[in-house]
């Protein structure tokens, strides 16, 4: 149809068209890569921590007075917390998933200093640990009250038993993860631990660690000066229990302070704040970018309509319908945009390769490229519609005027 004349007309005034095409191409490269980063962050954020997040909160108690007895305080605190109405269970632990601070060690299947262990995150818990975190024990059994040991800050002894995650079992025994139960592993090069249970899944405290699901539970209470209580409540009770627990702990013993009380939901939010902010910023960037590009299209199209007012009038006078004029500008934009998105596809992939090398980001999903191409073609058409309609309403009489 009219592609021939449109193309030739465009060739007479290439610069504007080239600028729009380039702009669309760079827009597409930014947009697709930004969306790919957003998808990646979304994936990371949606991973389960393995615990009953919505009903858990944590609070830290720090003893400071000379006559503060940490062990008795912990025992009494836990006894009190566990009988509080609305509390499902409570434990003392050194850390929680997503908190960013914790303890890691290496586990190895053979003893010896020359063997490199597999890194594992350690949660110190007692026999209520599995119930408090809401973990799913898939093999073996829970710790017994008699297994629980007490550990001072500078102690180096380990208990005899451990419960590990399935992911840890798979890393230790890649050939036979199901056979991990009952096996002996070594911590601190030579100290043996028997695997007495396997839990389905639980995350380490560091969400960006590549071994994030490698976790072991140790049946130990810690006497490290600062004590963290993990409290699981019945659904819906958490928010009303939090201030109560804080007040009770503070009042029960004046030789300590309680602080850093946070719900798991809040800990998750803080943990992924960087990622969720990145998503917000990128979304904002994409919206602005598309706005700038479409305004550019509107501006240039209006200009070209103004310049060609006389020519349009002439065409109209010679019998071209309004629709034909509209179609002319729409088609012109389509051709420019199409060239733009073709170039954009190349730029997108190039930019992605650069980003993978510089920041080890992930590859873009293939379907993003055609989807973005289609989307930008549509944006172009929408943007040009206004000026094109204005062009189509140029009256044929314009042709008869001199200026």
């Amino acid at each position: 149809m009219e592609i021939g004349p449109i193309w030739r007309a465009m060739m007479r005034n290439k610069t504007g068209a080239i600028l729009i095409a380039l702009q669309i191409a760079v827009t597409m490269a930014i947009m697709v890569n930004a969306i790919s980063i957003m998808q990646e962050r979304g994936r990371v954020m949606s991973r389960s921590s393995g615990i009953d997040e919505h009903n858990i909160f944590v609070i830290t108690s720090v003893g400071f007075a000379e006559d503060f007895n940490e062990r008795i305080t912990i025992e009494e605190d836990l006894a009190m917390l566990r009988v509080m109405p609305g509390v499902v269970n409570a434990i003392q632990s050194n850390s929680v998933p997503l908190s960013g601070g914790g303890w890691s060690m290496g586990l190895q299947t053979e003893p010896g200093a020359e063997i490199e262990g597999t890194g594992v995150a350690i949660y110190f818990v007692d026999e209520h640990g599995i119930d408090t975190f809401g973990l799913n024990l898939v093999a073996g059994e829970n710790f017994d009250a008699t297994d629980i040991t007490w550990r001072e800050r500078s102690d180096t002894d380990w208990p005899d038993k451990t419960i590990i995650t399935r992911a840890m079992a798979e890393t230790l025994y890649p050939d036979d993860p199901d056979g991990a139960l009952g096996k002996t592993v070594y911590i601190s090069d030579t100290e043996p631990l028997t695997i007495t249970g396997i839990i389905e899944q639980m995350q380490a405290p560091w969400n960006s660690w590549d071994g994030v699901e490698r976790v072991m539970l140790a049946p130990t209470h810690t006497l490290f000066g600062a004590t963290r209580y993990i409290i699981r409540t019945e659904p819906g009770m958490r928010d009303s229990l939090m201030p109560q627990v804080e007040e009770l702990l503070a009042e029960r013993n004046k030789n300590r302070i309680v602080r850093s009380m946070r719900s798991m939901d809040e800990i998750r939010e803080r943990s992924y704040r960087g990622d969720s902010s990145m998503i917000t910023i990128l979304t904002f960037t994409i919206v602005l970018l598309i706005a700038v590009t479409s305004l550019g299209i509107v501006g240039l199209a209006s200009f070209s309509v103004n310049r060609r007012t006389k020519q349009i009038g002439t065409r109209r006078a010679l019998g071209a319908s309004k629709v034909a004029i509209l179609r002319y500008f729409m088609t012109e934009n389509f051709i420019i945009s199409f060239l733009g998105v073709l170039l954009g596809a190349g730029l997108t992939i190039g930019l992605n390769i650069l980003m993978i090398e510089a920041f080890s980001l992930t590859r873009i999903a293939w379907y993003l490229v055609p989807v973005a191409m289609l989307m930008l073609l549509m944006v172009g058409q929408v943007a040009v519609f206004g000026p094109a309609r204005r062009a189509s309403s140029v009256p044929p009489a314009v042709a008869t005027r001199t200026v």
Partner: protein
Amino acid sequence: MFSYYLKLGWLSIRRNPLLSTLMVAAIAVGIGSCMTIITVNYIMSSNPIPQKSDQLFYVQLDSWDPNNEDDDGFEPPEQVTYLDAMALMKADKAYRQIASNRSGLVLEPQGEGERPFAVDTRNTWADFFPMFDLRFIYGSGWDDSADRNLERVVVLSKEINERVFGGEDSVGRSVRLNGMDFQVVGVIDEFLPVPKFYDVTNGAFNEPEEIFIPFNISVEYEFPRNGNTNCWKTPDGDGFEAFLNSECAWIQFWAELRNETEKQDYMTFLNAYAEQQKELGRFPRPLNNQLSNVMEWMEKQEVVDDDAQVMLGLSLLFLLVCLLNTIGLLLAKFLGKSGDISLRRALGASRSSLFIQHMIESGLIGLGGGVLGLGLTWLGLRGIEMLFGDFVKNLVGLDWVMVLTAIGLAILSALLAGLYPTWRACRIAPASQLKIQ
């Protein structure tokens, strides 16, 4: 002439308000988004102590595990062990040196009904204060004898002095920490190095500690360690003594070396120390001790976040889109007034004066975009502050360098964008345009 061109430019901008607004807006949005991200990057990578950053050296000793090799070979541990820190302090070979680590204690205010609260503390040595150029409001740091004689002295931050003593001169008074009384010897002025270079291991953009305590005191009373502790070997035996003598690294060590000779002498000393330790059966890896000055250390620790760099790249591309946009619009505008240009040419204006005139017009648009963009940058930084909260409190300030950069970048971009359209405008042959009229 310049003011005449300014006036012409202004008139031309006013004649075409839609196109002009679009151009100013495009530049403003580009500058705004770019400068927001540039500011964050700029602050992340800024020099926290410019006056002496190349005289302060972070010390790394490779005392680590011979069986644990990274992909890029052996890297010494980030921090040093207690044994090594004490040996280096005792040797006293640098002009100044400090070993330090992070701790947390509970402060009990003496007033009636005031609740005890937790404070972040730093255990360090007398040299910390002169070495890092801390300024004092009251008193001064402690001296070497306090370190040696285990004196219970503290230096307070300005904020904690406000909170506990209402901002009065508290020198000589005492504060109660973990059930023990400490005598205040000094109160420092505002101290907020960004990045917090002296301890990037425990958060490069965290707030500095609130109370400074002699390191030896913290060991004597076994204060808790709130920082990172890494061990490649389990301590031989239980108890604090065994921990101190272990291969656990938990201390940051800084040395002040005033020139290249001092630096080389110190390196020689470190290597001799390591050799001597090898004879005692420690330091099983090949010799690999390192001295990094402040900016080298920031680089090594990759203080600038990957995300910030990705955003920087994307925002520069964004600016490029805005520029392409401006080029197109300027082109439309300048070619739109071909008649004008031809008339001026015909009346004797030279090409170069037309060129200058149009570049000035572009510059004006750039200036407008820059000023507006600065406003958008401020908004953008507030947005980032809102999103990230207290994590970035120290990263979202605009200083005059950034303000000038924003305006400069805007004008430069507009001039660049104006080059081609101006060139095209100047090439219009006057005769062809005037004929129609």
